[in-house]
C-alpha cells in the first residue's frame, strides 16, 4: 500500500526522524488556517501517489496564510498524471543547504536489503544514476542483522554527504532503516533528505510503500486508507480480498494466480481481444470468492463477456463451479461467462457446471479456446 507523503512522514516522526511540522488541508480555508497555525513561510504540497508533483505545479511556497489559501485553491482539484488532488499538506518552509537522496528497499536479485544514497538528491535521481553512477552509492544489508552502524557511517562518507553533519545523517539512515523493517515497509524513499542551514538532517519528502502481508502486526495502518479516495470497484475488490486492476478492454477476466491471470490477458490479446481487468482470486478460493469476483465485475459497464480461467491446485474446481452456480442464482449478470476448469477436483467441478450450462454459461476445454470464445462473445455483445 502506497502512502501519501504526509502519512509516510508521520511514520518517520514516530521513529525519531526529523520532519518539518505541518497540517493536512482539504480546503483552501483549512490551508489558510494551517498556515496561520504554523506561522512564517509555508509550503503547500499536493498529496498524490505519483512522482513529478513539483514540475506539475503541485508544490508551492507561500509567504503567509493568504498566499497559502491562494495556492491551495490552485492545487486542490488539480490533475497530476491522472491523479486528482484531494488533499494538500501545508508545512513550515525549510532552509535547505543540501539535498540528498535515500532509499531502502529489497534487491530481489541479491535477496538482501539495499540502501541507495546520493548527495545529488532532488528530482532527477534516476538520471543521476544513469549519467553519474558513482554519485549514487548502493550498499546491501543482510536482513538477518539489519543495517549496522558501520554501514550507515560508511555509506554517508562514500556518498560524500556533508562531513560536518555526517553523524546526524548516519543516525537518520539508521532510523529510516528501522522504520523500513519494524514498520514492514516494502520501500522507504526520501527525496530529498535535506541538510538545513543550521546543520540538521530532515526528511523533506517521503515515499513509503507498506507490505500489506504484514498488516496483522500493524492494525493501526488500516487507518491510512481513510485518506485515500479509492475507485469504488477497487475498494470493493480489496474489501473482498481480491487482487483487482482495472484495464481498458471488454473481456472481464477472473483467474487464480497472478501468472495464470497475466497469461490469460496475453492470450486474450493474442486472439484479438482486450481484457477489461486483471482479477486474481488467489490461492484456495472458495465458492464465496468466485461469487464475490463476479459481483465486482457487475459494477463495470465496459464488460461485455467474462472469462473464468481456473487451474486448481490449492484452489478446488468444485468450489469454483459452485460459486458460479450461486452467482447465477443471486446476482444479475448482464454478460455471458466462459468457464475453463482444470486441476484439483476438475471432474467434480465440470459436473456441477454441466448443471447450469446455458447460452450464458459456456464451458471451454482449453485456455486458448476459452479466450477465443470470450473475445467472440465480447465482440457480439
Amino acid at each position, binding site marked *: 500500500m502506497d502512502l501519501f507523503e504526509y502519512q509516510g512522514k508521520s511514520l518517520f516522526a514516530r521513529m525519531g526522524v526529523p520532519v518539518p511540522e505541518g497540517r493536512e488541508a482539504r480546503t483552501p480555508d483549512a490551508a489558510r488556517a494551517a498556515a496561520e497555525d504554523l506561522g512564517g513561510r509555508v509550503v503547500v504540497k499536493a498529496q498524490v501517489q505519483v512522482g513529478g508533483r513539483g514540475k506539475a505545479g503541485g508544490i508551492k511556497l507561500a509567504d503567509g496564510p493568504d498566499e497559502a489559501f491562494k495556492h491551495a485553491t490552485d492545487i486542490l482539484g488539480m490533475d497530476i498524471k491522472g491523479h486528482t488532488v484531494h488533499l494538500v499538506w501545508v508545512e513550515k518552509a525549510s532552509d535547505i543547504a543540501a539535498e540528498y537522496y535515500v532509499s531502502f*528497499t529489497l534487491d530481489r536479485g541479491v535477496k538482501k536489503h539495499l540502501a541507495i544514497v546520493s548527495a545529488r538528491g532532488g528530482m532527477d535521481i534516476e538520471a543521476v544514476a544513469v549519467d553519474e553512477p558513482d554519485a549514487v552509492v548502493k550498499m546491501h544489508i543482510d536482513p538477518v542483522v539489519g543495517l549496522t552502524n558501520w554501514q550507515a557511517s560508511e555509506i554517508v562518507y562514500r556518498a560524500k554527504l556533508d562531513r560536518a553533519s555526517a553523524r546526524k545523517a548516519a543516525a537518520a539512515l539508521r532510523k529510516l532503516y528501522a522504520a523500513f523493517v519494524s514498520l514492514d515497509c516494502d520501500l522507504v524513499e526520501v527525496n530529498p533528505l535535506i541538510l538545513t542551514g543550521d546543520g540538521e538532517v530532515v526528511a523533506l519528502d517521503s515515499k513509503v*510503500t507498506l507490505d500489506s502481508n*504484514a498488516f496483522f502486526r500493524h492494525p493501526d495502518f488500516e487507518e491510512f486508507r481513510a485518506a485515500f479516495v479509492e475507485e469504488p470497484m477497487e475498494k470493493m475488490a480489496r474489501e473482498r480480498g481480491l487482487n483487482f486492476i482495472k484495464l481498458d478492454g471488454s473481456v472481464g477476466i477472473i483467474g487464480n494466480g497472478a501468472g*495464470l491471470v497475466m497469461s490469460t490477458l496475453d492470450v486474450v*490479446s493474442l486472439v484479438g481481444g482486450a481484457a477489461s481487468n486483471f482479477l486474481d482470486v488467489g490461492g484456495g478460493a472458495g465458492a464465496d470468492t468466485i461469487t464475490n469476483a463476479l459481483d465486482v465485475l457487475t459494477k463495470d459497464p465496459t464488460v461485455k463477456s467474462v472469462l473464468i480461467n481456473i487451474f486448481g491446485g490449492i484452489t478446488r474446481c468444485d468450489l469454483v463451479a459452485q460459486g458460479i452456480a450461486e452467482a447465477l442464482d443471486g446476482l444479475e449478470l448482464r454478460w455471458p461467462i466462459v468457464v475453463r476448469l*482444470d486441476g484439483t477436483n476438475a471432474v467434480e467441478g465440470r459436473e456441477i457446471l454441466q448443471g447450469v450450462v446455458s447460452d450464458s454459461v459456456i464451458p471451454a476445454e482449453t485456455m486458448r479456446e476459452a479466450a477465443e470464445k470470450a473475445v467472440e462473445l465480447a465482440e457480439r455483445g
Partner: protein
Amino acid sequence: MAIYVDESTRLVVQGLTGSQGRFHGFRNKAYGTNLVAGVTPGKGGTDVDGVPIFDSVAEAVAATGANTSMVFVPPAFAADGILEAAAAEGIELIVAITEGIPAHDEAMAYNYVKQTTGTVLIGPNCPGVLSPGKANVGITPPEIALEGSVGVVSRSGTLTYQAIHELTSRGLGQTTCVGIGGDPVPGTSFVDVLERFQADDDTEAIVMIGEIGGDAEEQAARFIDGYVTKPVVAYVAGVTAPPGKKMGHAGAIISGSSGTAQAKQEALRSVGATVVDDPTSIGEAVTSLL
C-alpha cells in the same frame, strides 16, 4: 531419476492438522509420497488418519527419520516454521507452500537458513515439487502429470499446472515439476533448478515459465548460456500486463530497464531458448525439439 523429491523422500508436514495441510498432505500420500509425520505445536501425541503428530519438527525427525518438510503454517508463523525445519538435523529439503508471508520475515529466513545450514528451501508461496510416479510434495494436482523426460520449472503456481497439462496432453511426461514461487525472495531460483535438470540424466528437455518483474529470468538466461546444453522452451507471462508496480526511484535504479516480459523473452531467446507466446504452444514446441 528425478530431482528434489522421489521414493527416498520421507515427508513431514508442518500444519498437517489444518484443513489445507491435511487435504494436500494426504493427497500427496495417496499419490505414493512417504508421509511419515505431521507437526502442530500442542497436538503432539495425537494422529491424523494414522499419521503421528509431533509438537516440533525435531521430535518428528527423531521419531520418524523425516528428511523433507512441507510448510503449511499460516503466514504470520511461516517464516518461524521454515527456521524450525532448517534447524532440525536431518531435514534436507523444505517446501514452503504458504502464501502471504511478510517480506521482511521471508528475507530474514532465507538469508539465515543459507548462512547457517545446507538445507534447500523451495518457496515460499509455491506449488511445490512433483516427480511424477515417484513423489509429490506440494499442491500440484498430480493427475495432470505423467512420468517422462521433461523438466518443468516455474515462478507461477497455476501456470505450472498449465504447462504440465500442455505437456501431458501431448504425451510428454515429466521428470520433475518444480514451482519455485513468485515471492520476492524465493528460496530456490531458476538457476538452482536448471543446474539440477542439466545434471539429471533422465531430463532431456526443460520447460521454464517466467513472469514480469525482478531479474530471475535474465539470470537464468545467463546460466543457460554458460551451462545448459539441453533444449529449453520458455514462456514469460505478462506481455500485455499493465506496467508493474515500480518501487519508487529505487526500483528503477536497481533494475535499470529490465523486468518487462519483452526484455525477459529477448534475454532467453538470445541464448538459444525457444520462447513461445502462448502457454498452449508449450507442448508443440517441446515436441519439435525432442
